[in-house]
């Protein structure tokens, strides 16, 4: 009896540890890779080396990393702020002002979540050319502000917001916008935090659409830089690792600062 219980424990923890190590190991390797030369990286060297300064110098001097990093940051932050505002407003409109017409629109929105981006790509590309937005960041931002997923996500979370509070605020004479930004928004912090992580991650990591739209080096984003570094004839692996670390760092920082809210936010959306 006892022995089988211990065996079970070993199996469960063994499985967890394998999953954990497999998940975390590439991060470790990425950080050591940043400090190693190209040859050492591709040979799978697992210890820290002394090439970090060299690698950093190369990415900053040969590839204008500062500018590219700021491009990514600019696109992601603007998209995130506008997307959170517009998507949460829409979700609020759908949830707190029920109407048959709007419900029908909402259902169409939900259906459109099934549409793969590939099916939108060509018309969007043509629109971009027509509006003269080719190679401009605005083309990336504008097309990704309204996110059906975020509208859905916010609405699911708004469902648990007590309607009585809104009624009470109305009785007290608060205007509809005031109710939204001074009562609902502040009390849904976790939802906004989770939405922020989702939105920032999506923009920061976007590849296909920027690959089509951003054609000059000046306008490139971090993902495009990493992709082009690795498809070079003579890839410099240490440099690639450095760029990967720099591209991943903001995501990790954001994730760890907002982690608590993130799990709460997802829990809220699954509850219904």
């Amino acid at each position: 009896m006892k022995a089988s219980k211990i065996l079970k424990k070993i199996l469960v923890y063994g499985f967890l540890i394998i999953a954990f190590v497999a998940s975390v190991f590439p991060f470790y390797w990425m950080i050591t890779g940043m400090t190693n030369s190209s040859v050492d990286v591709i040979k799978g060297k697992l210890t820290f080396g002394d090439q970090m300064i060299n690698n950093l110098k190369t990415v900053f001097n040969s590839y204008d990393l500062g500018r590219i990093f700021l491009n990514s940051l600019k696109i992601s932050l603007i998209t995130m702020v506008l997307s959170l505002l517009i998507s949460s407003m829409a979700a609020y409109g759908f949830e707190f002002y029920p109407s048959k017409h709007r419900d029908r629109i909402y259902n169409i929105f939900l259906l459109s979540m099934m549409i793969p981006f590939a099916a939108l790509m060509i018309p969007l590309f043509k629109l971009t050319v027509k509006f003269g937005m080719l190679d401009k960041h605005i083309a990336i931002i504008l097309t990704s502000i309204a996110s059906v997923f975020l509208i859905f996500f916010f609405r699911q979370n708004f469902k648990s917001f007590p309607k009585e509070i809104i009624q009470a605020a109305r009785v007290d004479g608060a205007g509809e916008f005031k109710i939204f930004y001074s009562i609902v928004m502040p009390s849904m912090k976790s939802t906004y935090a989770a939405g922020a992580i989702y939105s920032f991650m999506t923009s920061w990591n976007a590849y296909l659409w920027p690959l089509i739209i951003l054609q000059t080096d000046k306008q490139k984003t971090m993902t495009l830089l990493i992709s082009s570094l690795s498809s070079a004839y003579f890839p410099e692996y240490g440099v690639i690792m450095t760029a990967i670390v720099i591209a991943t760092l903001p995501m990790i920082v954001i994730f760890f600062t907002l982690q608590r809210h993130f799990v709460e936010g997802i829990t809220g959306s699954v509850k219904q």
Partner: protein
Amino acid sequence: MAEVTKSNSFEKTQNRYGWFFISFALILIVIFLLYPIVYSFYLSTTETKGMVQKFVGFSNYARLFKDPMFIKALKNTFIFLIIQVPIMLFLSLLLATILNDKSIKFKGIFRTGIFLPAVTSLVAYTILFKMMFNSGADGMVNKALMSMHIIKEPIQWLLDPFWSKVTVMLALTWRWTGYNMIFFLSAMQNIPDELYEAAEIDGANKAHQFWYITVPMLKPTIVFTTVTSTIGTLQLFDEPMNLSTGGPSGTTTGPGNSLLTLSVYIYNLCFKYTPKFGYAAAVSYVIVIIAAILTVIEFKVAGDNNESK
């Protein structure tokens, strides 16, 4: 009477606010989502010769079935879908079940660590995997496997059509298992403990509890993760593109086009050679149709759990 008009006008202003709140999103979605969907369908019935675009009906769709590249892309995409998605979701569910157990120690650390891959960009982790799965004898994974005497010869991870598919699947599983696990974990918090306690009293073991309580209670979440993973796989682009030599400008996608997916094919048709927008739009509509059919099947298999949403 006055009451009625008052409540009527209240409803009218309420309705107006409703429209206002959704208006920005509505306008953007109509321009950048609904219009493109419709326009894409129109495009799929046209062909561009030189400067003129002419209506060709469904002949683009008829051409698809005679196009070996399209068939190849379709086959590759389905192989990824059928093998990788179930394995990943089962792993996610298993990990979530283990981590939901109150007696497990260091839960937070395990959960965070296993979720961590989900914060990496698709391009970044793909390139990381490309370096780890270097086909030479000194590639990291090969070296590790050889030193553990699991293999004798280095595996041609990215040079062999079969192994390059395996690499993509391993990479996908690494990236998305923790992500899906979080959805399962969140949903599990809503399963009342009493259910398990009652089952325990009735003598059901852990495996029984998993199949007869956890799985049925998680049905909506299982449907959600299955649908999103299916659509995600149908759109697979970043990974095959960046795992293959030469990236977006390489001659083939993976050895012998073994990594050519539908999305990559659409990209190639539009941006690599002379643009064939009409034909590419037809390929993209095939994805739409497949996604729709699979979604319906997935809902049906789950037994109409959608009313709970």
